[in-house]
């Protein structure tokens, strides 16, 4: 069989794979964004715990960041996927359900990415908080600010400003890490979208970029073409986010004096 030329493979529509690859890129982005936001929640909680007076919560947060940064991400994804399903199956048994209950790949994958990236985000948030000159907090207290006002007006904006470069690094990491969910399989079925009277029908299964490349490579027997396409699309994502973070940094530091 003569291999199909590249442009014929990469058509939009049922004959080609371009639409699948583009949707897969969108899903990868979605996985990364959701994982990053989960990570932000874990990171904030753990950063507060690390900065707190209580020795117990400091130790717990230390344990969290040490373990999650020292263990391979793939192992964490396996734990969440298999362990999570085991827990849900056990709960299901209690209520009389039978057999193995699988968890939705999207939730498991993004939670696993979130808990790993949260460990890295903890350090960034903590570092950004410690970068705030203590005098500013004293001054704000002297003005009678306390609690939420202090957090909203003084601490929050500055943590965001100091933490932005570190967060940019972590975002790149999360983007690349999202490829790992392809291993446990993650697909979103989308059968139809209703927009008023308009019904857009899709028989496509969304898969993340790497898995989609894997599937397409298998069915066309042209693995190199599809993996190179995946590489290009990942590169486009990381390059675009580098640019976005550079813009965001310029915006966040617009009022700062350059030394």
């Amino acid at each position, binding site marked *: 069989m003569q291999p199909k030329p590249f442009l014929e493979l990469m058509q939009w529509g049922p004959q080609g794979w371009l639409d699948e690859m583009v949707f897969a890129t969108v899903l990868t982005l979605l996985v990364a964004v959701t994982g990053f936001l989960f990570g932000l929640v874990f990171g904030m909680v753990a950063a507060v715990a690390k900065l707190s007076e209580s020795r117990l919560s400091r130790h717990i947060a230390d344990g969290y960041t*040490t*373990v999650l*940064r*020292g*263990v*391979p*991400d*793939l*192992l*964490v994804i*396996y*734990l969440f996927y*298999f*362990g999570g399903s*085991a827990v849900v199956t056990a709960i299901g048994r209690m209520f009389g359900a039978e057999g193995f209950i699988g968890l939705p790949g999207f939730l498991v994958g993004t939670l696993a990415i979130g808990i790993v990236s949260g460990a*890295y985000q903890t*350090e*960034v948030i903590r*570092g950004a908080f410690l970068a705030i000159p203590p005098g500013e907090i004293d001054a704000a207290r002297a003005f009678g600010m306390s609690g939420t006002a202090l957090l909203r007006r003084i601490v929050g904006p500055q943590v965001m400003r100091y933490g932005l470069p*570190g967060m940019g*690094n*972590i975002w*790149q*990491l999360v983007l*690349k*890490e*999202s*490829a*790992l969910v*392809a*291993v446990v399989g993650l697909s979103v079925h989308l059968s139809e979208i209703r927009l008023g009277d308009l019904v857009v029908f899709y028989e496509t299964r969304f898969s993340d970029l*790497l898995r989609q*490349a*894997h599937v397409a*490579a298998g069915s066309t*027997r*042209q*693995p*190199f*073409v*599809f*993996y*190179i396409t*995946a*590489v290009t699309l*990942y*590169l486009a994502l*990381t*390059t675009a986010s580098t640019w976005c973070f550079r813009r965001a940094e310029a915006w966040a530091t617009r009022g700062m004096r350059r030394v």
Partner: protein
Amino acid sequence: MLAGVPLTLQLAFSSIALGLGMAIALALIVRAGLRPLSWLAESYVFVFRGTPLLVQIFLVYYGLGQFRPELQEIGLWWFFRSPYYCALLALTLNTAAYGAEIVRGGLQSVPAGQIEAARAFGMSGLTLYRRIVAPIALRQALPAYGNEIILMIKATSLVSTITLMEVTGLAHKLISETFRSFEVFFAAGTIYLLMNFVVTRLIDLAERWIAPDLKRENRVAMVPLDTR
């Protein structure tokens, strides 16, 4: 699972050793600034740092399989047929790109005055690199390189996806056989933490050995931020 430790360490250390050689070559090419070559080296680093390692592994192992007849013709098929060599190649290419940035940073940190002083003493070329540039750059780059080693140990877990049975591969197999994911996770996690702990200690010792005069608190604390 302990049976997977030799393979994990073997993959990590051989790719780091090979990758370090490549990284130094890449950094020197970029520094020399020879136009077409340095441009190539820079785009190499950009591509390998900008894409997930897992995609790179798949590209080498599955992707190059597309060229089986051609590879057989030039007698390289035995290499690309083996998951071990493919994994080693992908890991090496990947760590070389990250390492090149670390080496570049180390070289950049050498104060110009030191080089000028060495030149005034009549040193040039290799002598200058061996006596002045390399030792200073090494001291600066070592902490970051220690992070890279730890990241590589973790990164080897990805080769389990192309059938290699290292620690994570064995853990996955055990989980799917026994469904005891928590126990297996904690056992495998402990193995990785122990390996990383030992490596961290060794790097600390090496740092103290090559830079006994630098006080620890003067140095910037490094948090490993990149993973694959």
